[in-house]
């Protein structure tokens, strides 16, 4: 283990002081709940003043986007400083002040592929929680075969004319803007004619419709584009397309790697650090006496602990500057499969109480149903295994 430098430990105590001074105590040690996430955007209304205070304090120091450059609204932290920041946030039980697809996905894409002007226009409002973005990738005919995007953008001189349909656009009904994959060249091979386009959701011809899942209400929507005019430029040097026209697949692939790490990570810490045994026992004191449930719980505990260590190892590897690359497909595959097992086990343990929509275990049934999507969204388990076998194991194509 490398000893912390004086500089690093100085930063650690400084950032801890800052968190303590700025994150209201009413927010700290609050149980993580989906309803407590601050998403921002024009439609956002704070339910609590303490959340607003915390977000504003974070914005003032660039801490909503710790790694982004200061000029784009970030804090300009180094990799190791960010790690320290996250560790102190976790230690002091401070919630993330602002979350959004802009911070997770569009930002990293712009930082990698955008022009300075694009970054200057789009990044700061993301860090300030002013503009909320959604992601328009999948289509009814482009699921696992994502490159089969059919939403078309025709070149009309000063603007693109967009027609088509997106599906699984999370929070499209709440979002201000969408980053979408559109086909700008219908004659090129399917990976080559796609562009990564930024579209204002208030544009005429954009409509959204929520999707009801087997688990009930969901943030997913269908998004329709009906003769939507998208300007070619949002100002000097600010194309509505990120990266080159017809090279949007490169941007999309880069982002999918991010997304996979996020979804895979979802399997960790879900039980709030409690052991699975404690969690099961809280459902029913005698449940661990059932030999089948006990065996499954032990196996799951073993696999979950080893997986959590693997996440840490890969995170350290990424933070050390060595890439994780296509191995992130393994994290996504293993993490989501473990999460599905966990919920199957919880349902077995809860018995008939588990199948009630509003039973004594709260949202267990809808959560269980929702986990079934874990191994589908962001690339199915089968697509992950394809990626591993072709890119990591280098097994032949045909």
């Amino acid at each position: 283990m490398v000893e912390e430098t004086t500089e690093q430990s100085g930063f650690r105590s400084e950032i801890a002081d800052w968190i303590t001074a700025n994150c209201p105590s009413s927010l700290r040690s609050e149980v993580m709940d989906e309803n407590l996430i601050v998403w921002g955007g024009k439609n956002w209304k704070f339910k609590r003043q303490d959340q607003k205070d915390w977000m504003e304090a974070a914005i003032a120091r660039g801490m909503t986007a710790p790694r982004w450059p200061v000029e784009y609204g970030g804090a300009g932290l180094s990799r190791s400083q960010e790690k320290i920041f996250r560790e102190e946030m976790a230690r002091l039980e401070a919630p993330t002040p602002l979350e959004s697809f802009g911070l997770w996905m569009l930002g990293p894409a712009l930082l990698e592929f955008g022009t300075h002007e694009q970054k200057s226009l789009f990044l700061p409002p993301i860090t300030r929680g002013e503009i909320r973005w959604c992601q328009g990738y999948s289509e009814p005919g482009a699921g696992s075969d994502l490159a089969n995007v059919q939403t078309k953008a025709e070149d009309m001189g000063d603007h693109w004319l967009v027609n088509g349909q997106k599906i699984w656009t999370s929070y499209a009904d709440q979002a201000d803007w969408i980053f979408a994959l559109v086909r700008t060249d219908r004659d090129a091979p399917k990976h080559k004619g796609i562009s990564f386009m930024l579209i204002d959701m208030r544009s005429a011809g954009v409509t959204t419709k929520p999707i009801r899942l087997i688990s009930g209400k969901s943030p997913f929507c269908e998004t329709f584009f009906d003769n939507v005019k998208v300007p070619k430029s949002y100002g000097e040097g600010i194309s509505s397309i990120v990266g080159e026209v017809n090279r949007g697949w490169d941007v999309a692939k880069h982002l999918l790697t991010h997304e996979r790490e996020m979804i895979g990570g979802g399997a960790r810490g879900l039980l709030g650090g409690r052991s699975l045994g404690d969690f099961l026992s809280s459902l029913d004191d005698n449940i661990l006496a059932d030999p089948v449930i006990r065996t499954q719980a032990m196996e799951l505990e073993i696999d979950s602990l080893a997986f959590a260590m693997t996440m840490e190892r890969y995170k350290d590897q990424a933070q050390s500057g060595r890439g994780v690359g296509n191995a992130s497909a393994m994290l996504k595959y293993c993490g989501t499969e473990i999460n599905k097992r966990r919920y199957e086990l919880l349902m077995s343990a809860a018995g008939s109480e588990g199948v009630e929509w509003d039973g004594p275990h709260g949202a267990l049934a809808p959560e269980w149903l929702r986990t079934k999507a874990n191994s589908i969204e962001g690339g199915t388990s089968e697509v992950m295994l394809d990626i591993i076998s072709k890119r990591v194991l280098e097994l032949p194509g045909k």
Partner: protein
Amino acid sequence: MTSLLETEDETMLRDAARGFLTEASPVRALRENRDQSRAYDPGLWREMAQMGWTGVLIGEDQGGADMGHRAAGILAEEMGTTLAASPFISTAVMAATALRNAASDRLSQIAEGGVTYALAVDEGAKHNPAQTSVSAEKSGNAYLISGVKTFVADGRSADRILLLARTAGSAGETAGLTVFDIDATRAGITRDAKPTVDSRDHARITLDNVEATGADILGTLDDGMTLIARALEAGQAALAAELSGVAGGAYAMTVNYLKERKQFDRTIGSFQALQHRAAHLWSEIEVTSSAIINAGRVLDTSPKEASLAVSLAKARATATAKLAVSEGVQMHGGIGMTDEYDIGFYMKRARVGAEWLGDYGYHAARVAQARGF
């Protein structure tokens, strides 16, 4: 948590070990051992000693290299990859750990490769040290030890035996056990070879009024469990690492085969049914390797709190090695069933390793206990 990334020193050690074992002890060497009915090649063991491997856990003052448990794990893993047979885990890991915790002056002999050890603990088909009933009855100034020990790894070839015997209490109790460090040829000891599927040395040891004195006791009378538990944990972590190497070796052989073998005018590795099985196997090996590294790290930093980390590693390694060898043989098809081909050796070692020092269920129960089930 300490980082699980491999350090530069560890990578160098791994590369050196791999280079040496690929040359000096490829799978072919195990086949030769088997055909010549020997458990291991003493020449190989001497070379391991010269490289400091026998002293990996022994302090420099006793002539050891004192590299620690993670380093021992790296060596064991590389041995697993080529199925290199030696008394490394029995002697350099378990006996060295026990002798070091008891401050024995025989440590330097282990470090220089001058003595090999076997641990005689089990008495039934399953690992369960607390069930020890081999008794050491006090008789004047001496003890008379009688009973039967089973599945003693390296038991026929070892120079000395670390014997767990009951000096007080009754079977099932952890108190009242004592460790004796005795010469394997002492009067009253019968060592019967029990050839196992992995072609390595396993013996049944019968003790008939074997005489021992207080000088033969390692550690504290009646408190042998504390001493042996630490040694067993060190061994379990190293064995887990070996099994992870066994899994990796079987996996590598299988993926190479998938890239070469043609059927239906195609390389069979292009079939998605096989690709997904291979990719799943690789994923399992990756996840297991984290548990292996973690066990070594915890043993090096907080050896008294290593039980969870070690059992997690042994359980995962047992399951992963089993998966790797089963998938390996299946994906090889008919040739995988032949003795002429090497993949079967991996299956046999994985099965023996699964049982030695506690099976999946034994370690799963320990994980459950540590996690408050």
